[in-house]
């Protein structure tokens, strides 16, 4: 196993090629959940866990079922199905097994199904022919990167609660501007790690 490659994958997907700030994926959850720090943290944890597990499931299905059967052209539909099925079952199991955890994180689970990063990661894993560990590193990094973006955004938006933002820009519009400016700052990372 190539540890440097794995480390680079994590860092690159979390910071340098952060999904939110360099590819503008997953924006609906990003703007929807980043209003408060508490929800942002809950979402980040849930999201990273779901990301890693669903990427692992997708990888197994892709390598051992779809590739031998020559069904790779179906990957978008199949991956969406896997994510949805996994999230739904996790939702049900969590409700039965650990209701307290369910009340904390359950609300985010349904939202995650519709996120674009969750489908982008398995697709990219398949496209780049990552092996299992590389896929896991990529999924973990993407989850951390999304969580980081959420937490930064929540801290900024909470600070702006008291700011005298012009009325038409309050709420979502100013958040889009913040996201744009953060993205501008993140361009500084470009070229840092080339995979």
């Amino acid at each position, binding site marked *: 196993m190539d540890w440097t490659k794995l480390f680079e994958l994590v860092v690159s997907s979390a910071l340098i090629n952060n999904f939110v700030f360099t590819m503008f994926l997953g924006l609906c959850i990003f703007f929807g959940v980043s209003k408060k*720090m508490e929800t942002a943290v809950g979402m980040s944890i849930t999201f990273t866990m779901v990301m890693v597990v669903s990427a692992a499931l997708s990888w197994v299905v892709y390598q051992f079922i779809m590739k031998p059967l020559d069904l790779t052209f179906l990957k978008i539909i199949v991956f969406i199905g896997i994510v949805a099925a996994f999230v739904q079952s996790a939702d049900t199991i969590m409700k039965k097994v650990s209701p307290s955890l369910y009340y904390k994180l359950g609300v985010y689970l349904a939202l995650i199904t519709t996120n674009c990063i969750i489908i982008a990661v398995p697709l990219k894993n398949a496209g780049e022919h990552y092996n299992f560990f590389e896929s896991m590193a990529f999924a973990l990094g993407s989850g951390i990167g999304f969580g980081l973006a959420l*937490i*930064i955004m929540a*801290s*900024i938006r*909470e*600070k*702006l609660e008291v*700011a*005298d*933002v*012009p009325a038409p*820009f309050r709420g979502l519009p*100013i958040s889009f*501007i*913040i996201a744009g*400016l*953060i993205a*501008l*700052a*993140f*361009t*500084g*990372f*470009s*070229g*840092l*790690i080339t995979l």
Partner: protein
Amino acid sequence: MATEAKTPELIVSVSPHVRGDETVGRIMWTVNLSLLPAFIMSVYYFGPLAAYVTGLCIVTSVLFEHFYQVSLKKKSTIGDGSAFLTGLLLGLNLPPSVPFYIPVVGSLVAIIITKLLFGGLGYNIFNPALIGRAFLLISFPKLMTIWSEPTAQFVALDAKTTATPLGILKEGGIAKLVEVFGDKTDLYMNLLMGSRAGSLGETSVIALLIGAALLMYRGYITWHIPFSFLATVGVMAWALGGDSGFFTGDPLIHLLSGGLILGAFFMATDYVTCPSIRKGQIIFGIGCGAITMMIRLKGGFPEGVMFAILLMNCFAPLIDRSVKARMFGAIKEKKEQKK
């Protein structure tokens, strides 16, 4: 706790209170004044063009702020010098030979988008001048990287273009850099005085240090951010910047070149966009230094100070949240006393 005598948490004496004579305006104008040496050196090295570019930035910044506030029927705050400072910093961060629309666009982005849309001075998340420059660098990459040679003649009409020291370092390594400047002592002297290609105000380290000394003497900036920033850059340049293995790098070149001094003393220390707690400020400085060196050594851009400060600006509210301030006058409780 209940058994102990209740100590007052906050002591407010009866009036009259002493009224400090520090105002936002006074601080801002002092910062403007402290940048005067750097401005003079930029005019000395890059000719009247430097004064023109910087002046245009200042005028457009002040005008944008004024018209925005007048059109929204708010009180115009151009008197407090913050728009002037943004313009001045933006101008000092531009290359000498830019067409007139570059300062105008830069001021627009800096003043309107980065500052006023967030609610004006005190609420902006990012340093306005740096966002202005980053926006220009991304939008006009060619124009923003034409560096002229410092001619030290007052009338220089045909400026020769050349590369910045960090650009040379990135392309040809340290041997090439020393070769261009003669020998090592010459290199250090030129970097210190500012006789090198670069953004207008960043070149003359000595002039910037004079301004920084004034600010530190007046207590407007503290050592926490600049020194942790510079120390991190120095240590990382020494440890990782060498051609032949670890701990062979030359920290002085990295400390004296690029926009490091300007960034560390005048931009990273911006009250609004840095953490307000001392411990947080040190984390902020270390973060700035680490990102700067990462970009300089490994990244796609030759210079990373601007991006480093902007990236840490994103993290500043988070740092402030996680490093909670000790209540004023509170004594650190020992663990066993709890319950």
